[in-house]
């Protein structure tokens, strides 16, 4: 009974699949780019642990696809390694998909990397920040590494605010966050602030009462917090509640819309470095903000800019590879891109990794709203 039904369902599905494939073949046969891999696959994260960012990534990506005139094929991956692998296989199984844009979390990016390499389909990473993920020509990361901004910004804060000592907080089981915390530690020390040590937390921690007590016992002028956004905001709030009045430099993930909304004023006076904010002083950023607002009637956020840049980069690769190029050719074209203009300022690429020197400094004001920080004198 069950098996009969299952067989019938399978047969129906197969018939439907055959029909769709042949239809697709017929319709594309008439076009000029019948063999071209011009479509860009995208693994979305509208559900799952990064759902708060997933919608923005997708909107930014779709804006770029519209402006660059490329077709985007979206498959939900929920930032789950197994689901994302299924999504990758579904995408690359489709005709005309020559590259896949994906990945917020480093775990998922790590899972996709060997797949992309073995299938020889370029993977354009839009969010994951673990070090050494890029591996051209098949794994490319236009997304910037936060430490590119943390080093200069933390040094600038030490000098302009006259800081003499700093304590650092990290999530010791996340390579990306450890690298960010390390960047803050070395650059604050180089700028003249005494290093009072690093307090280690774990990504899965939710109770920070112990860590906060440890930080307060060091009595530092400045605390840098490089943990995941939720944890960084919770630690910041707890520090202020227990009377800490020094400078806090935190992961820019504290300033995602849901966190700002739910933490409100408790994040006041926190600094962070970021490549994009709607208040950015970079001209290309203002253009992006305007186009996004026209299309969606809301302000873009960092994630939207990351989705936008990734698809813009992917589209540039596809167009440089030319009509009729296959995935391998597109990979080479992507790996060959050396410069690109972006809302994050002019990007340069080395080994498939994007770099920018135009990071912004933001300070959350007393009402809990991020404002561009222009210096201690301003």
């Amino acid at each position, binding site marked *: 009974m069950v098996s009969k039904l299952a067989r019938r369902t399978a047969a129906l599905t197969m018939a439907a699949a055959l029909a769709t494939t042949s239809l697709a073949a017929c319709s594309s046969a008439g076009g000029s780019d019948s063999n071209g891999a011009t479509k860009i696959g995208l693994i979305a994260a509208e*559900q*799952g*642990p990064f*759902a*708060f960012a997933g919608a923005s990534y997708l909107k930014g990506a779709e804006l770029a696809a519209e402006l660059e005139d490329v077709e985007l094929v979206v498959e939900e991956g929920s930032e789950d390694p197994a689901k994302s692998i299924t999504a990758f296989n579904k995408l690359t199984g489709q005709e005309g998909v020559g590259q896949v844009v994906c990945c917020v979390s480093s775990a998922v990016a790590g899972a996709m990397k060997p797949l992309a390499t073995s299938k020889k389909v370029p993977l354009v990473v839009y969010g994951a920040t673990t070090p050494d993920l890029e591996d051209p020509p098949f794994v490319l990361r236009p997304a910037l590494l936060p430490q590119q901004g943390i080093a200069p910004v933390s040094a600038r804060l030490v000098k302009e605010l006259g800081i003499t000592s700093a304590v650092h907080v990290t999530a*010791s*089981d996340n390579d990306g966050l450890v690298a960010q915390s390390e960047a803050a530690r070395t650059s604050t020390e180089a700028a003249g602030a005494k290093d009072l040590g690093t307090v*280690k*937390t*774990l990504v*899965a*921690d*939710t*109770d*920070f*009462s*112990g*860590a906060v*007590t*440890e930080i307060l*016992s060091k009595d530092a002028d400045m605390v840098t917090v490089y943990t995941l956004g*939720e944890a960084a*905001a*919770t630690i910041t*709030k*707890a520090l202020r*509640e*227990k*009377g800490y009045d020094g400078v806090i430099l935190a992961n820019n993930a504290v300033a995602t819309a*849901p966190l700002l909304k*739910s*933490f*409100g*004023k*408790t994040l006041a006076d926190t600094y962070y470095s970021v490549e994009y904010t709607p208040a950015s002083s970079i001209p290309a950023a203002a253009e992006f903000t305007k186009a996004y607002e026209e299309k969606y009637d809301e302000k873009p956020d960092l994630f939207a800019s990351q989705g936008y840049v990734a698809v813009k980069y992917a589209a540039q690769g596809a167009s440089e590879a030319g009509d009729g190029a296959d995935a391998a050719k597109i990979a080479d074209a992507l790996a060959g891109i050396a410069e690109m203009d972006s809302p994050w300022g002019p990007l340069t690429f080395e080994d498939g990794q994007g770099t920018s020197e135009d990071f912004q400094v933001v300070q959350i004001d007393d009402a809990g709203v991020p404002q561009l920080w222009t210096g201690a004198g301003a």
Partner: protein
Amino acid sequence: MDVLAQQILNGLALGSVYAVFGVGFGLMLATLGVLNAAHGTFATWGALTVLYLVNDVGLGFWPALVLGVLVSGVMAVIVDFVAFQPIRRRGGDLLPALITSIGVWIFLLAAARMVTGATTSRYSPDAAPSGSFDFLGLTLGRTQLVSLLAVAVVGVGLHTLLHRTRVGAAMRAVGHSPMAASLGGVNPVLVVAVTAFLSGAVAGLAGITMGLNTSTVNFMLGEALLLKGFAAVIIGGFGDVRGTVVGGLLIGVAEVLTAQYVSGSLRDAVTFGLLLAFLVFRPRGLFGSAASMQTVRA
């Protein structure tokens, strides 16, 4: 020295959340014979209820807390009726009830993920207790005080109820033998419902205070509590409210001190290492008697 005392206080506050949850989880295990994989979701739903009432309806934190506790309790009664009662009636064992509880867990977890959109939030800082005050030269957060009060109320209240009242005697009787209980003039269906309600309500209270203390409310909130509460029950000596409270507090202090003086990454190792050691070498736990082992049955 100062830091050590402060960290012990932090540990007690954290452990009190585990203890409260463990008391509810242990009540269901010892009395109703269900190793309930879905128990963490009761905590989650209690916290989500408060989140909704405080942030969207605009209710004050304390009335919201009472309603959240009620919702978790009622949820436990419904779950028991739908998923555990039919198995209990058949005289089934731990295993089938565990499997239905896994089904309930999948269901309630997925439902929680749907209503939250998998996002994390927190009670509005304007409404929820916040800030801290000096306590014997140490700093005690108001949220920590709430969990310490919760464990005092639940621990003393439930222990008194079980050992000093007729209802409590009936609950323990149902735990030992439903048949004997019904012969003694106790309506087992009602007693089971009351037990399930209390067990869920207490889990809800734990979830609400957890959300308050960590400024983190999401669909996964109860999962960590489930594992730690399970450990508290086993370490404390199963079926004993005092033991579970001590077990929970012990885990909390051990975790915080391990993180401060050894390594944050060994936090879970200490808890679960203790758990396995107790299971293997002292299954009775700190307080349990050999007799209480016989009470796990449906």
